């Protein structure tokens, strides 16, 4: 292309940025398409699942779990005290010594396969409850969370009797009782990520789901009950921070696995210092999604959208920093703006909903605070023009342009549907900016040049690199961070080392 022609093309696109907008209106509207939920039963009250039995909490306390999309209460859930946690750890210890550690690995595998199958059988019900309790769109819980949860159990089941191959011929033994604390963004999926490898490696489990999204873990307890696992192999204790702290502090827990914020992760690492407990942490992120000018731009825009608006941006590996080569910045922003017109925000149970509710009021406040900071710092905000429902917690898909690398929206994890767009000029600059964070969970690279993908992938300090794709997960694929995004891996052969001791 000659320079003259190039500038002609560029100026045409620049002009269009100002004037030629596509209109995404009401020429043909989709009718509401709510997922039927009449077949789903949520109990009015859930006790703790300890030692294979549903037991009332010693604390005598229950808390409400509500739907973030309607603010309606869904159920009362037991609040486990330190005493309840102690009972659960004791049950897990007993189950470990009495059943699980002694069982033939092939038998252990069969129990885990059973769980996988039952999740598949109850998939729709689990998806609906996940969307009700957590606010995520049904298309995501139906097509991502629940199938992947089943896949994690299925995958790890097969490892149970093949662990001798996993460590280059070195023998391994289970650790004992694993205390596992999971977040609210992928409630059932995170439970599967934690429980499946722990069981496959021969450990027993005390799992604490997040207090805003306990329901699917409790449905999973029912599945585990129906799968006739020996009592105490999996124990579910519901509660908030203090319940988790009690689990971390319990002297008879051999391993802590935590997914959540970096702030809490550091507290846990400090709390267990000197205890000889094993620890894996899967913490926050502020991933760079790097778009080169030679990328397949329309697909890259899909990758941007999937990277940051998937699950309302409540994703630790969300591509929350868009680094776009300056030569295509304007056209990418234009395409992104048009794309945002088509994101449908609303009822999580509507099959056409793309963006659901923010998980909690607290999280919504945090998002609002950081967005206000972005505006205050002088970045230009663009939010999709979607109407927000009156009830519930909502935030429109949003992005900032013109943000400084030093600004809060470019450095802090927002954990919401908010993208910060920045530019770079050369690949070296892209690497420097991408790595300029204490996080290191994930990154995206978009370019049509294979050599550049490998070059970038080598330079980026992140545990998961998506080249020309984003937010892909698989049980065979190790997931976890560099730097302050935590340590240890989940998934694949690598994930097993979190739950065994090499002897």
């Amino acid at each position, binding site marked *: *292309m*000659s320079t003259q*022609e190039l500038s002609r*093309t560029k100026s*045409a*696109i620049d002009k*269009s*940025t100002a*004037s*030629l907008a*596509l*209109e*995404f*209106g*009401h*020429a*043909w*509207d*989709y*009718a*509401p*398409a709510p997922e039927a939920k009449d077949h789903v039963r949520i109990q009015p009250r859930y006790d703790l699942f300890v030692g294979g039995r549903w037991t009332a909490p010693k604390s005598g306390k229950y808390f409400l779990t509500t739907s973030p999309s309607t603010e309606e209460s869904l159920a009362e859930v037991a609040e486990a005290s330190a005493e309840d946690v102690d009972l659960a750890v004791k049950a897990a210890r007993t189950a470990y010594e009495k059943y699980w550690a002694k069982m033939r690995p092939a038998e252990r595998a069969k129990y885990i396969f059973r769980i996988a199958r039952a999740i598949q059988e109850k998939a729709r019900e689990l998806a609906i409850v996940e969307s009700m309790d957590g606010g995520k769109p049904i*298309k995501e819980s139906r*097509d991502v969370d629940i199938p992947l949860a089943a896949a994690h159990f299925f995958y790890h089941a097969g490892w149970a009797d093949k662990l001798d191959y996993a460590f280059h011929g070195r023998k391994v033994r289970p650790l004992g009782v694993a205390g596992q604390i999971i977040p609210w963004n992928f409630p059932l999926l995170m439970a599967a990520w934690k429980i499946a490898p722990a069981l496959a490696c021969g450990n027993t489990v005390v799992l604490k789901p997040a207090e805003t999204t306990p329901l699917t873990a409790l449905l999973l307890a029912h599945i585990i009950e129906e799968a006739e696992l020996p009592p105490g192999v999996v124990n579910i204790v519901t509660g908030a921070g203090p319940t988790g702290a009690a689990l971390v502090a319990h002297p008879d827990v051999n391993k802590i696995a935590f997914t959540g914020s970096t702030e809490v992760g550091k507290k846990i690492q400090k709390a267990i210092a000197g205890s000889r407990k094993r620890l894996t942490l899967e913490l926050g992120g502020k991933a760079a999604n790097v778009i080169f000018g*030679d*990328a*397949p*731009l*329309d*697909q890259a825009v*899909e*990758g941007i959208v999937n990277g940051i608006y998937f699950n309302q941006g409540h994703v630790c590996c969300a591509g929350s920093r868009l680094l776009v080569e300056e030569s295509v910045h304007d*056209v990418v922003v*234009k395409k992104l703006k*048009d794309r945002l*017109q*088509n994101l449908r925000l609303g009822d999580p149970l509507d*099959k*056409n909903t793309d963006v659901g509710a923010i998980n909690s009021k607290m999280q919504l406040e945090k998002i609002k605070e950081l967005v206000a900071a972005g505006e205050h710092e002088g970045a230009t905000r663009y939010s999709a023009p979607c109407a927000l429902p009156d009830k519930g917690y909502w935030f429109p898909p949003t992005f900032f342009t013109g943000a400084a690398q030093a600004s809060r929206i470019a450095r802090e994890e927002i954990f919401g549907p908010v993208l910060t767009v920045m530019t770079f000029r050369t690949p070296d600059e892209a690497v420097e900016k991408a790595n300029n964070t204490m996080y290191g969970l994930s990154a995206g690279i978009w370019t*049509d040049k294979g050599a550049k993908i490998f070059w970038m992938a080598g330079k980026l300090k992140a545990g998961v690199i998506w080249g*020309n*794709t984003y937010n892909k997960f698989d049980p065979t694929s190790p997931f976890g961070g560099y730097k302050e995004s935590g340590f240890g891996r989940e998934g694949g052969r690598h994930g097993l080392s979190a739950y065994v001791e090499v002897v």
Partner: protein
Amino acid sequence: MSTESDHAKTANGTMEFRAGTPGRGGGIPLFAPPPVDQIAVEERAASLAKRSIKKAAKVAGLKLAIRMMDLTTLEGKDTAGKVRQLCRKALTPLDSDPSLGPCAAICVYPNFVAIAKEALAGSTVKVASVATAFPSGQSPLSIKLDDTKRAVDFGADEIDMVIDRGAMLAGDYAKVFDEIAATKEACRHAHLKVILETGELGTYDVVRKASDLAIAAGADFIKTSTGKVQPAATPPVTLVMLEAIRDHYYATGRKIGMKPAGGVRTAKQSLHYLVLVKETLGDAWLTPDLFRFGASALLNDVLMQLEKERTGVYQASEDFSKD
């Protein structure tokens, strides 16, 4: 017989496309269409296929689909009688419901243009004719142009031409461009739809290239397929072409139409295509002026689904006329 100088003469002034060495592998400096990632574009098309179109949206979509249809018969056994039947179907798709239709156009071989024109006289239904040595396009340019001119002389409102896929795959983009430009000239007032025959192009990258070429050379519509090659229209290939149209609109403000043809057989598929259009190009393209279905079997399935929505009862195919 066409020669290189013929091409130069008939090119409609966009001389940049003639730069570089003509012939095989000839470079065209301006011509650098963006790459397309197969997996990602197929993912996007698949995710749009998950849109749930129910009730009023379904009825409205299907009614729109009927008005976007180019009812097509392109067979060696075509007769005047067959074409007249199809014209009646285009005018009144369902006798019991005169609110449906009419279809956008009838699509026939040049020999039947006059017959169709007569059968459709006084209606809004256009007559489209395939031309340019359809379906292979493997004839000299002069014959292709003559084919086009005659179809227009017979009264065709729209010309559906085929590109020279051989030239496209051999890298002779200048030839492809010039033939389209020349055909556009030969069309005079008739609208030009350019068939890329995506099933023969091998990759989405080439589809995107051919789309950009066709648009630059003067196409009013770009169209996936002749219907004679498998695969014909697919949602992802349509999405790639819609994206080419979108980029052209961003750059110039000019709206190019899109026509998936072949392979669209069910009402559900047609709604899926409408979703692609709605969420890629927006409201302006949700009109027969800018979006068409090239189909023969699709109409009856759409009618069946509409009757099902109206009556609440699943219909039998024998209840609908097979024209």
